[in-house]
């Protein structure tokens, strides 16, 4: 294969990519995946945006620093590890695969994700897990306001605290918070998880190497925003 500046083959299946040098980097990653490369070490990410976007299964992508917005966005099976922090929209609309963040994440982490796993070892910003459609989002630290906003499905698990308006307008997503909840959003209710639920959540944590027993509160929809008050279909004909 022709040498490409910024891409160094460590073996047939393992390469090193200099983010500073390689252009159209996501296309290159897809090409490397097609070529049979299974692991890419990304040097000098320097908090650049849109890194490891739209990647597929069979590729592990390891960043040795911080990434900017939409890291791992639209992920479709890749295993992504970020040593330090990430910006907005990490793992947005992810369908499968995993993203592990060693530091903290910002607004909209896992927004609209449909499957897979995001694991943030630090804190997350506002709107974490907003519009989630599935998958698991684990935050070892705390989450900002409007976390779990309109979450359709999936698990948002927070070991730290949650900000204001938690679980606002929730659909059928499940939110678990071990720490303090500053405030609930519209139609969000706190319930005690039953034993099966608690066992399931702790099993998800153990799979990520997080041991211990956490006193989770579960947040579910009150379902008052699911329907207009008047369910009589004829009522819609008044106009």
């Amino acid at each position: 294969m022709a040498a490409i500046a910024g891409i160094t083959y460590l073996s047939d299946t393992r390469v090193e990519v200099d983010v500073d040098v390689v252009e159209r980097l996501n296309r290159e990653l897809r090409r490397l995946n097609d070529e049979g490369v299974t692991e890419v070490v990304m040097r000098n990410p320097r908090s650049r945006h849109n890194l490891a976007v739209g990647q597929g299964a069979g590729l592990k992508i390891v960043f040795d620093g911080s990434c900017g917005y939409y890291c791992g966005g639209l992920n479709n099976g890749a295993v992504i590890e970020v040593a330090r922090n990430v910006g907005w929209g990490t793992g947005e609309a992810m369908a499968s695969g995993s993203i592990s963040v060693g530091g903290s994440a910002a607004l909209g982490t896992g927004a609209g994700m449909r499957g897979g796993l995001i694991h943030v070892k630090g804190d997350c910003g506002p709107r974490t897990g907003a519009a989630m459609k599935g998958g698991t989002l684990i935050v070892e630290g705390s989450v900002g306001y409007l976390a779990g906003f309109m979450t359709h499905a999936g698990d948002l698990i927070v070991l730290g605290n949650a900000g204001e308006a938690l679980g606002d307008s929730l659909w059928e997503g499940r939110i678990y918070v071990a720490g303090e909840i500053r405030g609930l959003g519209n139609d969000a209710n706190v319930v005690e998880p039953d034993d099966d639920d608690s066992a399931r959540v702790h099993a998800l944590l153990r799979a990520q190497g997080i041991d211990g027993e956490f006193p989770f509160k579960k947040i579910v929809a009150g379902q008052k925003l699911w329907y207009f008050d008047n369910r009589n279909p004829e009522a819609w004909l008044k106009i």
Partner: protein
Amino acid sequence: MTGKGQEPEIVQGRSHIWRAEIIRDIQAKAELGRYQIRGFSTFQKFPSLDELVFLPAAMTRLPLEGYRELCVSETTIGGGRPDLVSQPLELAIPVYLTSMSFGALGTNAKMALGMGFSRAGSATCTGEGGMLEEERDASTRLIYQMTPSRYGLDLEHLRKADAIEIVVGQGAKPGTGGMLLGMKVSEKVAGMRTLPVGVDQRSAVRHPDFLGADDLQVKIMELREATDYRTPIILKLPACRVREDVKIAAKTGCDAIVVDGTEGSTAAAPEFQLDHTGIPTLAAIPAARRALEEIGMYGKVTLIVSGGIRNGVDAAKALALGADCVAIGTAALVALGCNAPRFVEDYHALGTEPGACHHCHTGRCPVGITTQDPELEARLDPEEGAERVRNFLTAMVMEMTVIAKSCGKGNVHNLEPEDLRAVSLEASALTGVPLAGVDWAVGPETFGRGG
């Protein structure tokens, strides 16, 4: 609760304030305890494109042979940035189908529209409910819409799309998200949106992972990265502060901007929003054009206009004012059979008549278009519907090209404000098009001669 016709009618009294419909509206709200919701578009009368007329060629210029000579109608969306878009959306005509979701429309309607627009060489748009397989198969050119709720957002669907439309808002209900009442949230619709079956779905209005234009700029690049810089990215705006909004939209780096006037339709919206929010399409087009001109982006970012475009003449006027393309919704549905005098007893059951039905929100569409009920849907034959849609589009483009040729233009995109005159003070003031006869425009800015 009964439909219209089973209650004594409120008569129109002498008051212009407390008109019969106002009294009926208050009575309904007093009974329901909520605002009124309905489909279709505004019932207000706004200054419209009808208040502009064309000035065909006479002595000052030469017309083309309207019934013979060729007139170009091909249209490119997103052709201004070849470095960022390798496959701009190429249409045979400057008209495509605006965003209408699967959910708002049934499967047969989606298929019929897809086939009809494809046969006319044009495109359809998925709307917010995700990409319906049947629509992808039917539409040779499909625009994939990404809304704040991100229903069914899928990387593979983005890659299968011929363009991507990011919704900021819509003309029918600016500043709010979509709405789909429980009667239409069927198992299939709910499955595509990850919703409980039968809920009254009210969508988010703010995107979950960006807030402003600077963030959106990065988001657009994310979509380009995910789709390998292939498809154009369109931003859909409701017509509000158009002059400012369009400039900011252009700054995000999108390839095309849809400006959706207040006449834009919907399958369900609060009526007060339909009637009292946003600005008319007539006013929005010149504002959008001027905005792009002021930042040197006119002709580089494709300007698409929607909201109340009913025929080829409306479309030609929109192009003359500055649009590169129009998108239609209701006109296409009417071509498909909306409000047709079939199954009249079912219109009556809804308390309405063919020609006056705006009950898309109920999911009980008598002609099987805006419904998820299999029995009602079966009333629409996709093949027959597709032919009606194709015929309508053909007629629409004939109207546009004849107008253009009468104005001496061999390309519909060469129509310009100079080809227009206003026949009302309002239209002149809103557009800057000079008044007919006096060639003098009302207001601070003038298109063409006069001033």
